């Protein structure tokens, strides 16, 4: 009896995914404890975040994918409208207009678009599945460019790039012809000087800093230099938990959020990093398997986009901390402290679980 109830309750939970993400969250808690100088309130607050995120994940895992299809268009339209509102009435925080005040709280509509854009594109391709032509790809690109353009204007280059990546994954998986991909690649390269001209000074600075962090060691390059030192000085086995000097003497900025990987890497070394890469690969691998077996074009595209976006977060964050990518505000998925990103990621993973476990029901 109990077993049956348990089976019903857990019917839509993917065990491999769950184990991997719980392990990543565990790594996160351990590292946050060190990075926050052993702050118990930080840990309990993150535990609360995790519980909320798991709840949301559980809920979405139980929502059949076709419900998602229904909300794709409204969610997308709502998101774009909110972005337009941000552009018109948004609050400026730290020089960027990203937040919108809606009665009780402030929200960041660009966060919503991380889900809404790939959802919309997957829905769109699925709708015209039978008659996909070049025209549809062009429409898809437009659907992608509108929110990205609004987000770039905020300005929030990091989010814009991540959403572009999510959209690009959908386009790629939807079968965009190689010739066009090549053409777009060449076109993008040709646009570089133009894009450079349109960039804000701080954005250019970040890119210049990446090329040579030492030219501004106390300014824009400081974060990269210090996090690279933390990673490098960690060595093969690390300095040990709670023993990182870069961490505990405040040399690493944003130790529990965007730069948490520097803390982890300093204290657990190359072995720790390899473990983390393996855990991320477990999540991604499971996502790929779910994607490959997804029943419809919509579920395939959406699952693929979620999986590859998850990878992109992890890659961009670790690349930034280890000094091969510019500093963009991307947390390390499931590890960094913070409710918003946890919820977004778990929501995506919940959908992935839903896609993985609802296929039989759809097929019958």
């Amino acid at each position: 009896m109990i077993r049956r109830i348990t089976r019903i309750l857990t019917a839509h939970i993917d065990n491999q995914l769950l184990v991997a993400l719980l392990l990543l969250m565990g790594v996160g808690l351990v590292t946050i404890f060190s990075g926050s100088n052993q702050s118990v309130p930080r840990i309990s607050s993150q535990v609360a975040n995790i519980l909320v995120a798991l709840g949301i994940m559980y809920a979405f895992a139980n929502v059949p994918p076709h419900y998602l299809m229904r909300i794709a268009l409204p969610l997308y339209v709502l998101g774009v409208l909110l972005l337009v509102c941000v552009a018109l009435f948004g609050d400026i925080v730290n020089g960027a207009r990203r937040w919108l005040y809606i009665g009780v709280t402030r929200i960041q509509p660009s966060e919503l678009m991380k889900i809404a854009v790939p959802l919309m594109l997957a829905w769109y391709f699925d709708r015209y599945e039978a008659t996909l032509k070049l025209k549809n790809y062009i429409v898809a690109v437009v659907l992608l460019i509108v929110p990205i353009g609004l987000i770039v204007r905020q300005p929030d280059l990091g989010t814009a790039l991540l959403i572009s990546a999510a959209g690009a994954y959908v386009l790629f998986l939807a079968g965009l012809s190689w010739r066009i991909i090549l053409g777009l690649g060449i076109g993008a390269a040709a646009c570089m000087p133009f894009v450079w001209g349109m960039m804000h000074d701080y954005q250019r600075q970040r890119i210049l800093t990446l090329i040579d962090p030492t030219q501004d060691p106390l300014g824009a390059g400081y974060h990269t230099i210090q996090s690279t030192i933390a990673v490098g000085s960690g060595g093969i086995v690390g300095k040990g938990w709670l023993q990182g000097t870069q961490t505990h003497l405040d040399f690493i900025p944003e130790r529990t959020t965007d730069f948490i990987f520097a803390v982890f890497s300093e204290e657990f070394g190359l072995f720790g990093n390899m473990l983390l890469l393996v855990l991320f690969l477990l999540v991604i691998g499971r996502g790929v398997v779910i994607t490959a077996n997804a029943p419809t074009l919509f579920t395939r595209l959406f699952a693929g986009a979620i999986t590859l976006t998850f990878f992109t977060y992890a890659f961009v964050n670790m690349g930034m901390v280890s000094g091969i990518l510019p500093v963009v505000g991307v947390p390390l998925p499931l590890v960094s402290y913070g409710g918003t990103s946890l919820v977004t990621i778990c929501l995506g993973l919940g959908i992935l679980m839903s896609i993985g476990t609802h296929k039989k029901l759809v097929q019958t």
Partner: protein
Amino acid sequence: MSELTINPGVELRNSRLEIYHFRVRLAIASGFVLFMFFLLFVRFFYLQVVKHDYYTTLAEANRISIVPIVPSRGIIVDRNGVLLANNYSAYTLEITPRKVEDVEALIDDLATVVEITAKDRRRFRKLIEESKSFESLPIRNRLSDEEIARFAANRYRFPGVEINARLFRQYPQGELFSHVVGHIGRINPHEIEQLEEKGLDANYRGTDYIGKVGLEQSYETNLHGTTGVEEVEVDAGGRAVRTLSRSAPVSGNNLVLNLDAGLQEVVYRAFGEYRGALVAIDPNTGGVLAFVSKPGFDPNLFVDGIDPQNWKELNESIDRPMVNRALAGTYPPGSTFKPYMALAALTYGKRRPEQTISDPGGFNFGGHFFRDDKVGGHGMVDMYKSLVVSCDTYYYMLANDLGIDNISTFMQQFGFGSRTDIDITGESRGILPSQKWKMDRFRQKWYAGETISVGIGQGYNSYTPLQLAQAIATLANDGVMYKPHIVNYVEDIVTRKRTVVEPQPARTIDLKPEYLAIVKNALVGVNKEGTGARAFAGAPYVSAGKTGTAQVVAIKQGEKYVESRVAERHRDHALFIAYAPADKPKLAIAVLVENAGFGARAAAPIARQVFDYYLLGKQPTPVKPDDDEAGRD
């Protein structure tokens, strides 16, 4: 299916092929994921294995800060232990200009809490100009307890301002020793370069001060000590978290001088309002017992950077208090040159002691009449009388007979015209004229007529009071010459080990004892029955001396020098050289009193006070101006 065949415009899609294509794309994407993660792994491997040592070094450099611990500077005491330079600890209010946006506004604010004078502000502005902006610079020294408490209560208002306990240098004797002990001051960029050249910059990390002049400068290496090092762990904000290791600093060595503070003070007071210099040497060791250049200045003004107003006053004063007259001022020796001339005459066989000349009141050479001081002359004059009455004509003739090169060769032995190498720097060489000297200097040959006035210590002759003192000390010591030295010994304050300075004679001049006896006897005569007799009347010891007067401006041919007609600054300098007791000299001195007229009148009484104090322990009575013309030289 049938619909599709009816409508040929819609291509039949093979769902299996579709899935196959999708999976190919997914496989490509997975390959991309693996490749990118591999790139990350390569990056981690590069950072954590290949460059691990490099980044460990950087992390350690971040974490560990080497804090120098400045040693306390050695103190300077006189022969009796009287403090001449010492250290005291006090609180300073310091600003780090780099951490402050508007320094002027900050100082205005600070002035509401702690008293800050206009002088403090000027001094601080000068410090900013001279220093690197990341140093913390003192705006106020010697805070009172109340001021410390008031600042502490308001500290939150003043980021970039802090109170530090520091050791300060103090010169308790003020201007009395300003020209000998010297002073320290903040290290300037030029001195940093010099320290770097000598490889001493590491030992000066954290040191703000360095000896600028006097003993503070010449014994800098002894006084400074060895800087200690503390390794502290610091956080990103530069705050020390804990101490990792510590090596204690080694304090600088103390200097114990030959100088006698009591004697120095007697000399200083004896000069009264006059400017001048006095050097007193123990002929048996070369130890300098008094070293005075008057006026002096308060060396304490220089310790933390002199403020521009005081600097201007000192620098532009007509009395030139910054010039070390005893060391760097050169003056014609006047008649104090005569004893050495007499000794030269005996040595070169140009005069016998009893040989007399007739003094008609001057000497005619080449159409030029060299006047004697006494109108009508001294009559018949032998060597003894020539010194006792200071007969110029005797020495005009003698100079002519000796010739300039004999004079210069002989005088060189007594150190005239060469540096004594005393243990402070900035010494002048003076001028001992010779044919070669004139050729080198003026590209002109020597005229025989120029030799005549050299015989009475005029002409090109020009020596420092220190050289005069060394010469008379050497004469008193029968030709055995010591290098004059101010420091008696350097004392290691930990081991109490003493390093004595200059215990050996520098050289011994080859002089016949009987000739020495003749000249020394005449010098005793000077103080007994000659030009020095009035000053030394009633002295319970036997002293030897020689008065001198040095012309400041040349007197026209046939004109007589009348003191009252000459502007004060153009009046003659008074000189006196002496030693006592005559049979076993314990002290030899040279006195120079600027623009004071005759040596017998202004300089000899000062010498008397010095000997009375040193030999008898007698505190001097105020000098009475002696207007009697009888004692002229």
